[in-house]
């Protein structure tokens, strides 16, 4: 860089004190606020997952009773989806990185951004309050299917209210990103010079904006139904439970792409860096994000193949479901092609990216299995589905998140993590993950239904294997967290661009100064991943 100044004051030092954080309008601080909140919830939900695996280690009651188990998996699902996966990548990485990547100093509406974080916290508090207020946390599953969710005595109202508030937070984040991308790109950055992560966020933001209101109103209806005792979805009072399912999945299917699209964006950033060459098919990846977002709106019915939906509707939803696999396929092929003739530097972020590709592939392909009518009739609501979604959500989006955490660790915290510990943690996690979830796919084919707290003897062996897998996974996760915490103090100072990456966020010091750049960032000409222009190590 031409005008390298002396190391400027980082955004951490610019202001200090608790209030300088929780009332900050700086996108980097808000991103970090999200990070700490999200990680706390994530740990809670993971511990719940761990408890479920313990309960399932043997048939019959092991460590908790049926009702507790039901509440545990509901809370696990609600936290994982609404409090971890939906906000994780956009609200943390998106907030921190988007303005840096497009070379501006903040998002379009900084105050609104802070407000979204507060809403997130409020929603989280409500979700946790269900533990102590009323008759305990909801026991409906994260899907809140009526009429059970209307009848049960547990505190569904508050859980639903929490989800409603979180939805609002998600909408405002999406709105902010869309306007930011439209208006605040660096003057020379054209649309097709944006990093692919920005493209992914852009596509995601549209889903957040245009799908979330539907769940908002649906949840309000559930609350109204519980409070006024009317029969919106309760057939005893003239309602139709299937209509609820339509409304729920109109949002919740697109929502799965809110979870995975930004994660795919992270992968598109990491792979070219570690392959030391430009990404293959930049435009195809950018367009396929939009395509996934768009087609993703038309397939919600695949969650309802056995619900009593009409035959023709099932057929149409099945075709459309298959079509949504094509843009995902395009992405996968492009990532793999990016490795071709590269000069590959195998570091932890790349390992996580490769694991992402493998696991997302497995998750996506099992998605095809349940997208087909005949097979879904058999596999719906079995452990096969549980396996499918953990593969895409945890093995996919979750692993991308962890990889990105290592990749941008230096940029965010100014220190480098310890590489060899990180790799050990990675292998533990990778092995543990597959031992944990692969047996679930088999269990599903054998016919074990999900949300079962007790199961028949036949299913025991595989459940034990799965539980053991969870222990391996945990040791990996704990090691990873340990490494990241320790490196924060003991790690080496991070240079501006430790990996030789090409996007704008690497042109500024690590961590960046308050207004992001100490000199006007230089937008590379043409493709943003062109390693020929940027040889500095």
């Amino acid at each position, binding site marked *: 860089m031409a005008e390298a*100044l002396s190391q400027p004051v980082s955004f951490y030092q610019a202001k200090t004190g608790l209030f300088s954080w929780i009332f900050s309008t700086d996108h980097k601080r808000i991103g970090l606020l999200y990070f700490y909140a999200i990680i706390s919830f994530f740990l809670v939900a993971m511990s719940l997952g761990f408890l479920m695996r313990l309960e399932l280690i043997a048939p019959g009651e092991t460590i908790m009773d049926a009702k507790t188990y039901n509440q545990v998996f509901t809370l696990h699902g609600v936290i994982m989806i609404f409090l971890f996966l939906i906000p994780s990548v956009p609200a943390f990485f998106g907030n921190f990185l988007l303005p840096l990547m497009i070379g501006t100093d903040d998002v379009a509406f900084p105050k609104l951004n802070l407000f979204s974080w507060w809403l997130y916290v409020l929603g989280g508090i409500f979700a946790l309050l269900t533990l102590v207020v009323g008759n305990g946390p909801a026991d409906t599953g994260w899907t809140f299917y009526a009429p059970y969710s209307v009848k049960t005595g547990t505190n569904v109202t508050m859980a639903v209210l929490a989800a409603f508030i979180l939805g609002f937070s998600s909408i405002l984040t999406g709105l902010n990103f869309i306007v930011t991308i439209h208006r605040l790109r660096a003057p020379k950055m054209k649309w097709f010079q944006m990093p692919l992560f920005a493209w992914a966020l852009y596509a995601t933001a549209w889903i957040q904006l245009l799908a979330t209101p539907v769940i908002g109103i649906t949840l309000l209806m559930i609350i109204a139904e519980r409070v006024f005792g009317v029969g919106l979805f309760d057939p005893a009072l003239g309602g139709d439970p299937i209509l609820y399912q339509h409304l729920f999945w109109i949002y919740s299917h697109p929502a799965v792409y809110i979870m995975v699209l930004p994660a795919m964006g992270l992968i598109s950033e990491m792979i070219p860096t570690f392959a030391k060459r430009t990404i293959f098919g930049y435009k195809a990846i950018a367009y396929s994000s939009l395509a996934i977002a768009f087609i993703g709106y038309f397939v919600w019915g695949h969650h309802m193949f056995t619900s009593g939906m009409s035959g023709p509707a099932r057929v149409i939803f099945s075709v459309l479901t298959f079509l949504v696999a094509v843009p995902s396929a395009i992405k996968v092929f492009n990532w793999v092609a990016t490795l071709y003739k590269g000069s590959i530097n195998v570091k932890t972020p790349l390992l996580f990216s490769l694991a992402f590709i493998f696991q997302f592939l497995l998750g996506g392909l099992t998605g095809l299995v349940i997208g087909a009518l005949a097979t879904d009739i058999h596999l719906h609501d079995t452990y096969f589905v549980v396996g499918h979604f953990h593969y895409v959500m945890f093995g996919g989006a979750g692993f991308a998140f962890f990889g990105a955490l290592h990749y941008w660790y230096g940029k965010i915290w100014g220190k480098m993590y310890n590489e060899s510990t990180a790799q050990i943690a990675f292998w533990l996690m990778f092995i543990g993950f597959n031992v944990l979830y692969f047996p679930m796919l088999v269990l599903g084919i054998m016919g074990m239904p999900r949300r079962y707290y007790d199961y028949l003897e036949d299913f025991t062996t595989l459940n034990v294997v799965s539980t053991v897998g969870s222990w391996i996974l945990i040791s990996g996760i704990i090691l990873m967290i340990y490494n990241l915490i320790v490196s924060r103090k003991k790690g080496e100072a991070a240079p501006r661009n430790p990996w030789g990456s090409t996007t704008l966020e690497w042109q500024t010091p690590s961590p960046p100064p308050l207004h992001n750049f100490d000199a006007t960032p230089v937008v590379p000409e043409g493709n943003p991943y062109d390693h020929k222009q940027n040889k500095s190590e």
Partner: protein
Amino acid sequence: MANFVLANSGHNRDDEASKFGMWLFLFTELLLFGGLFLVYTIYRYLNSEAFLHASYELNVIMGTVNTVVLLTSSLTVALSITALQKGHVKLTMWLLVATILFALTFLVIKYFEWSAKFEHGLFPGMDHYEHLPAGEKMFFFLYFFMTGLHGLHVIVGGVLLGFVMRDIKKKKTTPDNYVYLENGGLYWHLVDIIWIFLFPLFYLIH
């Protein structure tokens, strides 16, 4: 530290961005009501007779008057923007006062309508309501839910315009910088548009 400002700073004034943001927000509002319209459509399809029958309970005259009131308030907001653009600050204020008065009129009329329904015991939980056939119950519940949510939006819109008036008073919103007024107006028009659909769906099924 040299505190230099990027040309494309998130801290700069950008009216187009504010308006764009407002439009995006309106899209979400549209889909929020969209969910309710979906429920309405399906239940109307399943219970068309009952909906038809129940709709006779609603007062077309009050509904029509309210439609006219809202349309007129939309006009006054639209005029107020023109007024501010032309620099007629006083006139702007009066037009906004008129708008808020129309909003209140709308709410008062709604209040009378709702209390009439309450007197007939048509609110969920009340006697008459509980004895209605399922389809009619659905109609009344949706009526209360949708017009209630809409009413809430009328209140929010009114308050928003109130804040804009304060801004004009404080000279924060001026003939050169009136994006807040525009955004307040946009919100207000959306409230109007939603009513444009609610009105025939509930009052004019006959």
